[in-house]
């Protein structure tokens, strides 16, 4: 039996184009039944020719799509973990269970001076903080048990406060008391994604092992990808980690898969067989040109080879990735205490 192949696409970052431009791209990706789109973001003013907020763009697209997963980058260095958590939970509500979170940090001097809150810090320190931010988000998403809203007319109670929980996180860079102001999102916890390099095991791997369900992996050979996946799953100690190899689509984008879009279906099939990874994250450089080719040429060729599904079979991002909806950690604790 052929292993299921997961396919997703990176749309780059959202330059200041009209909303319809971005919505059109997301709708096109949905037409191809891809698992999800990612949209980059950054708080560095020097970074690119203008950029819309990624959560904003995908929230807008959410209202005009119904199946495709939506994964914005949200950086953790100059933002408030509480706001990040509630914005992503809300993206999950407005999309009815299709939100994820691509975690990143801001290491540049320009971003630090723009936000004006702190000096630049070394990358390992920022990634440790990112890991704390992911921990806080998970606790806040869990802080309302699924059935916390009771609307009990007899006692006048709208919620059962025994099913709401404080996050009570204290770390070197921030503390958060909780609970969230947003009830538990439809997916329980929107899946967390992180970009890793197969050649370089660094502090990001700890974040991935502890918090991620999606790893977007840079690897230059099927063997390296296979090894990295094995190592990641060993560290994570769980089987709910999907490893997708990042593939640049522009001819000059370099390794691993050069040769243009015509050769792509065969190359993906070959890698999928050899690398043992879960699929591919196709990175566009000019999405208006590359995405139509992916949807109209690459995807049908993969389908013809029996490698990719014809339609979305589930509704949520977790459904597409074959990830179970987690229970609230606090609900588990309550049961254990009985």
């Amino acid at each position, binding site marked *: 039996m052929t292993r299921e192949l997961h396919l997703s696409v990176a749309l780059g970052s959202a330059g*200041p184009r*009209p*909303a319809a431009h971005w919505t059109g791209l997301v709708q096109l990706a949905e037409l191809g039944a891809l698992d999800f789109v990612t949209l980059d973001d950054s*708080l560095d*003013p020097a*970074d*690119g020719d*203008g*950029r*819309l*907020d990624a*959560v*904003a*763009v995908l*929230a*807008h*697209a*959410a*209202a*005009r799509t119904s199946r495709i997963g939506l994964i914005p980058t949200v950086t953790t260095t*100059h*933002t*408030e973990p*509480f*706001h990040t958590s*509630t*914005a992503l*939970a*809300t*993206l999950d*509500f*407005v999309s009815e269970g299709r939100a994820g979170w691509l975690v990143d940090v801001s290491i540049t001097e*320009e971003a630090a*001076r*723009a*936000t*004006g*809150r702190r000096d630049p810090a070394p990358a390992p320190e920022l990634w440790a903080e990112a890991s704390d931010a992911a921990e806080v988000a998970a606790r806040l998403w869990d802080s*309302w048990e699924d059935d*916390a*809203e009771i*609307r009990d*007319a007899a*006692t*006048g*109670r*709208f*919620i*059962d*406060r025994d099913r*709401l929980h404080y996050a009570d996180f204290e770390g070197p860079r*921030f*503390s*958060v*008391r*909780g*609970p969230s*102001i*947003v*009830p538990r999102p439809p997916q329980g916890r929107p899946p967390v994604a992180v970009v890793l390099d197969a050649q370089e095991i660094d502090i990001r791997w700890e974040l991935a092992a502890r918090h991620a369900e999606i790893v977007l992996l840079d690897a230059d050979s099927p063997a390296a990808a296979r090894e990295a996946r094995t190592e990641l799953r060993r560290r994570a100690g769980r089987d709910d980690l999907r490893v997708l190899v990042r593939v640049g689509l522009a001819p000059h984008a370099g390794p691993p898969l050069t040769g243009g879009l015509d050769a792509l279906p065969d190359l993906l099939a070959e890698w999928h067989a050899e690398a043992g990874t879960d699929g591919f994250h196709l990175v566009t450089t000019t999405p208006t040109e590359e995405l139509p080719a992916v949807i109209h040429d690459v995807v049908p060729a993969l389908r013809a080879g029996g490698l990719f599904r014809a339609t979305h079979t589930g509704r949520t991002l977790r459904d597409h990735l074959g990830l179970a909806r987690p229970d609230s950690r606090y609900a588990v604790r309550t049961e254990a205490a009985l």
Partner: protein
Amino acid sequence: MSASTPAGRKQIHLAAHFPGVNSTTVWRDPDSRSQIDFSSFQHLARTAERGRFDFFFLAEGLRLRERKGRIHDLDVVGRPESLTVLNALAAVTEHLGLAATVNATFNEPFELARRFASLDHLSGGRAAWNIVTSSDAFTGENFRRGGYLDRADRYTRAAEFVEVARALWDSWPSGGTPRTVRHSGPHFDITARATLPHSPQVHPVLIQAGDSDEGREFAARTADIVFSRHGTLEAGRAFHADVKGRLARYGRTPDQLKIMPAATVVLGDSEADAQERAAHIRRQQVSPQTAIATLENVWGRDLTGYDPDGPLPDVEPVPDGELAQGWAHMSDRFGIAARWRALAEEKHLSIRELAIELTARQSFIGTPGSVAAAMDEHVRTDAADGFILVPHLTPGGLDEFVDQVVPLLQERGVLRTEYQGATLRDHLGLGRPEPRPEESA
């Protein structure tokens, strides 16, 4: 820009407050639906747009309120994050303004200016920001900055925040080159340029709700809309005259600031029917448990042993009894308790009846015809420029108003029958802001 039609009738501006987390939102009613699902937001926003409202308004909460050290469980609880919901609503509406309440104490100017510019771009020029501040260490426990910003510093931080945000919004003219903003002040020290060119409105519409003298001054200097609590004819006219009178010293005209009090509407087939419905709604809003909780906030002590349908407690308040966190701070408990007792005695009110009386706000109660006439009178006589309607039901709470009162306002020539412009500034008759040429804030 004139706010009048050719016939000279002063136009009514209308906004819709989403009835979510709020003690006035009735959740016991069989028609009450989710306060969190997107479909609820979509229903109310589309209803408001059908009624040719100016904008849709979301409140904010950054920490769940507590009583007696435990999370308050009597009111509707749980809300989404405002800007994300509004970006989604921008995709399913065409004209309706989209207003988010966002705290200037627990956000930073560069990031927030960018988020509002994004909403303005994605909505085609329909963004508004209701600027609020907090001095609350309780809320601060959820944020990096943590604790207390004292009361005086709240407005200086908010003013500096808006100044920096405006400099950023101005810093990238459409078709031009982005400028670098350099700002160094007591609260912010930043060097940046905007990450986006001018959005359709350049600046989102600014809304402000403070009622103190410094709040009114801040509004006169900065805001496009004041969200007022003075809804009655007499108090509304006094507030209107006071705030509009402050505009000249900032080189602004009375048309450039709209005063919009919160108001509720209850309709009936007759005046008596409407009054009966209003009384029923008030009893749904103030349950026996909520009535006791209202008194506990002042008494600072547990009153659960008292009968909500009986007389007020004979015990005295506890001076420093902080039972509740996340509500406005209560000072002069003894004075308030004495006034409440006098009121209850004079009108023969039980605890619950008193709580109903105390938490009343401006209401238009009557037939569609009498409500349309009363709203028109308020606006015509400068008690208000319009209203932010606060329905009690999610999400159908505006259906009756839009079906029954809006056509009558349109017949009177005081409410548009079609949107004339594309942006929220157009709806409000506010000009496009002139970006300032200077390089730094």
